[in-house]
């Protein structure tokens, strides 16, 4: 019934044209970043660069101070990686206990996390900043890791708890009968089985933490320990319309997430289609 007709071909061509328009910003991004200063000011913004000029990238990657892009890149990697590891560890343990416990408090805890997902973060940002400053967590990568873990933990626990509920207890029962301790059951039986949930948590947490600007602007603002978005914001703030340099740093900031997305795009999209809560 729904076969490939001439009309479908037309639809396909139309969609590709639309995609080209939709992604036109990336044409400007790449062509402009590859222009030299003089070329950028003298040629049309639509024109291709006469030859690939990487001076903008060199300038960007050697910037120092609070717009240290390379330092920011490193910090972003550390903070994103650290947050993901902590979110997987704490999220799976807490989610597991909540899913398996039959005590009444576990249901209360489940709602504690569910409400925390809905609770908007803006209001808490100011007191969190004050609290973090008083115990010396602002301006450090560690502080950011703890902060992001706290912020995203409810979603992570929620994903894990729901995953474990759907898993069934047969394997764990068998392992317990065979004499495994509680920790062995978790580490040997449950942990390997929870890979799908871990994948989802990794993608969501990775995306949110890597791209986050608001939180890191507040908590790292003014320090030399910037994440990439903040370094980018400060660096661009110091440029007026040197678009080749601006776009060089934009490209640097996009490459890691884009590579990950193209590598695991199916999982990304499935995760989103399942509904990003919060």
């Amino acid at each position, binding site marked *: 019934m729904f076969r490939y007709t001439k009309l479908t071909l037309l639809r396909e061509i139309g969609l590709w044209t639309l995609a080209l328009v939709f992604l036109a910003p990336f044409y400007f991004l790449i062509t402009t970043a590859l222009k030299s200063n003089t070329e950028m000011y003298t040629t049309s913004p639509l024109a291709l660069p006469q030859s690939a000029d990487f001076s903008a990238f060199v300038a960007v990657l050697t910037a120092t101070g609070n717009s240290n892009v390379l330092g920011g890149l490193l910090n972003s990697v550390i903070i994103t990686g650290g947050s993901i590891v902590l979110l997987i560890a704490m999220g799976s343990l807490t989610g597991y206990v909540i899913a398996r416990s039959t005590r009444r408090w576990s249901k209360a805890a489940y709602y504690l996390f569910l409400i925390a997902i809905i*609770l908007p973060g803006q209001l808490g940002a100011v007191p969190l900043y004050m609290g973090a400053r008083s115990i010396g967590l602002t301006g450090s990568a560690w502080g950011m890791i703890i902060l992001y873990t706290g912020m995203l933990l409810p979603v992570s626990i929620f994903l894990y708890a729901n995953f474990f509920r759907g898993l069934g207890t047969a394997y764990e029962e068998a392992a*317990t009968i065979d004499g495994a301790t509680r920790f062995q059951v978790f580490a040997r039986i449950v942990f390997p089985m929870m890979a799908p*949930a871990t994948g989802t948590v990794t993608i969501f947490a990775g995306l949110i933490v890597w791209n986050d600007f608001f939180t890191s602007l507040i908590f790292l603002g003014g320090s030399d320990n910037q994440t990439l978005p903040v370094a980018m914001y400060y660096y661009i703030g110091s440029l007026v319309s040197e678009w080749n340099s601006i776009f060089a740093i934009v490209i640097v900031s996009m490459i890691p997430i884009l590579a990950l997305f193209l590598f695991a795009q199916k999982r990304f999209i499935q995760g989103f289609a399942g509904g990003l809560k919060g």
Partner: protein
Amino acid sequence: MTATSQSTNHAVNRPVHEQTRTAQASGSVHRVQRMRGPDRASKRKWGLEFGHWWWALPGIALVFAVHYMATGIGGFFAFTNWSGIGSFEVVGWKNFEAIFNDPTKIRSLGNTLFFAFGSVLLGNIMGLLLALALNRVVKTRYALRTLFFMPVVLSPLATAYIWKFIFDYEGPINVLLNAIGAGHLAKPWLADPQWAVWTVLVVLTWSSTGFAMVIFMAGLTSVPVEVEEAAAIDGANLLQRFHHVTLPALRPAVAIAMTLGIVQGLRVFDPIMALTGGGPAGATETLATEVYKQAFALGNFGGGAALALVLAVIILFFAVIQQRLTRSNPED
């Protein structure tokens, strides 16, 4: 995968008549799950056997501190005149009176709602059209889906800088307009108070389209081919088929895409900071950018907290609606 595991779980816990409905609606996974009845009994029997309750303690403590304590304290400061350092007084509703008597704050409130609803409406319409166009037979649908989804995973701050260039007075849009002889339409898009809000809206729509598209594409898989074919054989035209077969099946997807988009849209901060910084003359200021400026740049913690509380209440309102739509029965 996530979607399946979550919804199966709900199906298990729902009353029987509801289960049947979901099972019919979304395939055989639920049916398999339903037959695992003994699970519940064994769960009750084994109880805490599989874990120690204190494994959950660090998580609970951290969430309590970062979410509940911080929000509570923030709510308290909304009623004070604290500047961020030194002493403060409790001033009651004064901060809120100041907000609602200040035309610039009312304007940012209006902008926040305008951006959230505008980008969700436009993004959902475009997302729906794309999903429908990509649905079935199109050979390169997955490649196209990846391309249209790309802006969603990229940093909103980074992509906003590209758009700032595109809408620059000497940028591609104006160059193009001049080239096709429509030079009189060229304008400083982001520096013109009247046009800046619309320009920002275009950027926000661009970023949100892919997300809506993916949710609609997932929703469209629940439309049975047989029913659509039957309707076509019975002589229903494309529009009738959409209205009577596709749209009813998409209703949950529409609800989710809209409310999620609004909740996200109300927080809009990064693209504004990159595109206009709230300017020109506050024309594109939102509640989120105002909160940042009041609390962190101007040292008006009390006022910033009050603004944040207003924003939080609005977000909470839509978030609760979203939660109700996503799962009417979260636990039992």
